């Protein structure tokens, strides 16, 4: 039975200098950087590009490390229609999945799969899972 995954929401590229890596990929791919932000709590510097339905997220430390930027693919997140049902189905199959928690994206819940994903940091998320008042909404990446 499917968990109701609809698409890849975002793919993470972790970099020692996320601004430099995002600028490099923007130039390479001829696509704009759509948004930059600082992750609340950690202070991580994030930049985003978007290709159709998929967001490419560049994540790095608050201040870039010295030397040449070093980046790597660091995981991806799938969108699901019903995160609670998806978590339940994965747990039924024996996968250790954390409880859904509020994501950085307003109104979204995210749950991480902690093992069994063959070396890939993996999570599922659902937009619109938490009702939002208009005053709390932020522009999408």
């Amino acid at each position: 039975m499917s968990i109701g995954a609809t698409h890849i929401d975002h793919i993470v590229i972790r970099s020692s200098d996320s601004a430099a890596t995002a600028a490099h990929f923007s130039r390479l791919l001829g696509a704009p950087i759509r948004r930059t932000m600082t992750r609340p709590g950690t202070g991580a510097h994030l930049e985003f590009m978007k290709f159709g339905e998929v967001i490419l997220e560049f994540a790095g430390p608050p201040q870039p490390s010295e030397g040449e930027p070093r980046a790597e693919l660091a995981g991806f997140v799938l969108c699901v229609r019903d995160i609670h049902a998806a978590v339940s189905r994965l747990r039924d199959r024996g996968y250790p999945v954390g409880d859904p928690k509020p994501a950085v994206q307003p109104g979204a819940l995210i749950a991480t799969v902690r093992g069994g994903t063959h070396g890939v940091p993996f999570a599922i998320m659902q937009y619109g899972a938490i009702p939002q008042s208009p005053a709390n909404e932020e522009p999408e990446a």
Partner: protein
Amino acid sequence: MITKIHHVGIVVRSADEALKFYRDALGLPVTADKVVEDQGVRGVLLQIGNSEIELIEPTRTDTGVYRFLESRGEGMHHICFETDDVEAELEAAKQKGIQVIDEKPRRGLAGMICFLHPKSNHGVLVEFAQPLPEGH
């Protein structure tokens, strides 16, 4: 022009084992499952929205994929961007000073493909793909 993210490539020890998660648990449909003899890999593509996930299992020990597996273990290997003109995209990358792995596009699981060297992309292995009209 880059049109979308075609797939992310994941190197695994056993595609059959990985399919237990990606196909059986997540419910993603398999769209291609082929052994590419000259590359020494078995590639399995699974559809997710307008993109795909590629599981890559080495079938020989004299390949870059096998060396990746031995040195880093299972994990994300590359990201593939779809283009409507892979030759033009490759040439444009060269003009930007990007070091390439494939001087010319070649036939791959995702269509006509080429790889750019990770040294030129901050360590990230990048693939361009132009799907063939007949599909996988």
